[in-house]
């Protein structure tokens, strides 16, 4: 790749990134009334990190990861600090177009855009990346990251998850990764360090589940745009602090419930969000949905639910079992569309819809993300059978389509509303 941008252009990219982040934060914070006070922590956190370039993590070697299926616990046990590099920035998306064909996925392009020479201040020292071999675009992006000077570990992921050989392959892959992570950080994965990291992540997941449990209630206690912000913060925040902040939010929401305060009207249509992941600052669709009067109560995306829902279960707290347990957790429950079959994803969607009393589903597919585009048919068929209307939105990071999308979203929400009225 010869297309190394000149310094001036790079500075413009960073400035644009800061601008869009500030703008997105302003929308999230100000355009909705009565945000929970505990959300301030997250608004401020995003402001500090995205607009001021501050580092949120404690001391330690940052290890970039490009997928939720990279086992965080192992990176942490080796003494590293995992940072998820998936970016939602339109500025980086455009910058990344130097590497990838124009029609490819915004998220991958933005990630590459982010890793170019001049980075946000807090990311400057990051030069170790774990790239998972999932979809073709991510697979190929790994090589480009190497060209950008990163030390990349290509963590090999099986294309199917149901068979025992796939499981064995992935376990072997993760075992190798333990050594690779040690090389990256200079630390050592020990029984104690891995046990502690499993438990720390598990505490975070427990907090997430408590929050998600509250979201199942009606009327809704938390807007989806805030929920996405919370889970997004998990990409880069200090783990323990994040858990504490989520617990504070849960406590506040519980108090609000007692006081009868809710985030949306009882009759607001309840939405399940699925498909390509909304990543800050690209919370375009969630914001449109909630501006139109819907409320996102659950999601099946890799920036939120898929990242935090599934838990490691250890039988014997020795390395041989802990490492395998971590491996299993990242493969078996995964509902990523890159796998050969998507039965689990369908069942997951239907279960979320049932448990969260969902009225309709919004399916976002980034233009160029073939796997999500391809699964659209099977998913909408399954949803239709279950009597769930689904809005399929193909989009990217550019703000150009907002006007057209908002009309569609509003119409969809309106149709859900009238459907509700009829059924009453």
């Amino acid at each position, binding site marked *: 790749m010869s297309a190394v941008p000149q310094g001036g252009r790079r500075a413009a990219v960073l400035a644009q990134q800061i601008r869009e982040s500030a703008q997105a934060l302003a929308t999230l914070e100000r355009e909705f009334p009565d945000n929970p006070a505990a959300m301030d922590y997250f608004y401020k956190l995003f402001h500090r990190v995205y607009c001021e370039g501050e580092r949120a993590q404690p001391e330690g070697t940052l290890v970039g990861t490009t997928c939720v299926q990279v086992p965080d616990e192992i990176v942490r046990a080796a003494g590293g600090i995992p940072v998820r590099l998936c970016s939602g920035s339109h500025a980086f998306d455009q910058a990344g177009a130097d590497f990838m064909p124009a029609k490819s996925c915004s998220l991958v392009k933005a990630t590459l855009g982010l890793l170019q020479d001049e980075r946000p201040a807090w990311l400057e020292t990051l030069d170790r990346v774990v790239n998972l071999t999932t979809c073709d675009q991510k697979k190929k992006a790994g090589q480009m990251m190497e060209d950008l000077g990163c030390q990349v570990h290509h963590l090999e992921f099986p294309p199917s998850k*149901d068979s*025992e050989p796939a*499981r064995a392959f992935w376990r072997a892959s993760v075992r190798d990764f333990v050594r690779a992570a040690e090389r990256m950080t200079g630390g050592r994965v020990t029984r104690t360090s891995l*046990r502690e990291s*499993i*438990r720390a992540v*598990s*505490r975070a*997941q*427990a907090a997430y*589940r408590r929050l998600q*449990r509250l979201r199942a209630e009606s009327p809704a206690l938390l807007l989806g745009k805030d929920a996405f912000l919370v889970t997004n913060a998990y990409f880069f925040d200090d783990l323990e602090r994040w858990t504490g902040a989520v617990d504070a939010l849960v406590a506040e929401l519980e108090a609000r419930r007692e006081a009868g305060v809710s985030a949306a009207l009882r009759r607001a249509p309840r939405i399940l969000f699925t498909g390509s992941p909304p990543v800050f600052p690209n919370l375009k669709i969630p914001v449109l949905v909630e501006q139109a009067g819907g409320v996102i109560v659950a999601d099946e995306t890799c920036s939120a639910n898929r990242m935090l*829902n*599934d*838990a*490691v*279960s*250890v*039988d*014997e*707290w*020795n390395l*041989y*079992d802990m490492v*395998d*347990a971590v491996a*299993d*957790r990242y493969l*078996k*429950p995964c509902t990523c569309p890159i796998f050969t079959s998507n039965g*689990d994803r369908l*069942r*997951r969607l*239907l*279960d979320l819809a*049932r448990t969260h009393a969902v009225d309709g589903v919004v399916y976002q597919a980034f233009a160029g993300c073939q796997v999500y585009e391809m699964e659209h048919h099977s998913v909408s068929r399954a949803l239709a059978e279950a009597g769930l209307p689904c809005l399929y939105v193909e989009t990217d990071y550019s703000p150009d389509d907002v006007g057209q999308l908002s009309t569609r979203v509003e119409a969809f929400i309106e149709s859900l509303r009238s459907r509700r009225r009829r059924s009453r």
Partner: protein
Amino acid sequence: MKRLRAFVNGVDIQRFRTWFQLFAFVLLVYSGYLYIDLGNSLPVFACGFNDAGRGGVCYLLPLQHQTHIPWESLFSWRALGLVTGFLTFFAWLLVLNKAWCGYVCPLGAIQDWMTALRRRLRLRYSVYSLESFTRLKKVKYILLVLLILIPFAISNPVEGLPHVPEDMATPFCTICPARMVIPAFTGDFSQWTLDFSTVTALVMTSLGMAILGIFFVGALVNKRFFCFFCPMSALQALFSNIALLKLRKDGDKCTRCGDCYRVCDMQIKAIADDVERKILIEDDCMMCLKCVAACPEEGCLKATFMGIPVYEATEEGFFRRQQRRGGE
């Protein structure tokens, strides 16, 4: 009530089970000294050869005696013993179902202790490949059929066929590792011998001692090594679907994360993969309920007694256990 439920569901089932097993072990292996006798139709390996201490007897022992019966007698009063023996066995089984294996069986407990020992030694365990697993699990049915047919064949010699020697009268007991292991706990090593009196006896007792050796190594390497081959488990499995204690699954809630499968000592894959069946008691299952404890999805797996949930997977319980366990 709700709080009680939450408390129970938050229980560390492994710890509870360990204590329960210890209690059951003392009851079945030592309480004979206190003249406690739970009869001789127990659906677990409370070995009858432990003359001194046994608090009850494994059903396979009387079963092998009772099937040592001439054909004509099958329709006379002599078959009464067979019928009452079976009915008692069945009544016991009806209550606890396969949890007899997970919670009561002394040989099961011994294997779990060996697993604990291995864990402390930080030796990793082995598992069977899926193919060997499917092949090996048939062994217990073959053993069950043989242990009924051989004594019957002794009593009913068929013209033309070779006579089955009398030393095969309790064919399974002679190769059952419990015959050596359990009496040893009351200091009785009289079973640890080779019997040179006849060729059959020599072959059978050698087989028994060899199996004992394999048992010691196997149980140290594989969790519940012997239970895969246990004919008692096969016999229980035939009736496990009508027993009162049940293991239920709500497939809709299952993420197929496999957490349950990976902690299962019996390598039961269906517990994670099957999302259709409501009642999921596989023939190897010992109803230890480790899977329930390992399932993070609220209400996905549960044990019910006569339809009433007694232990249920909950998020809260799962994450509490996750923080508490692993102190070792």
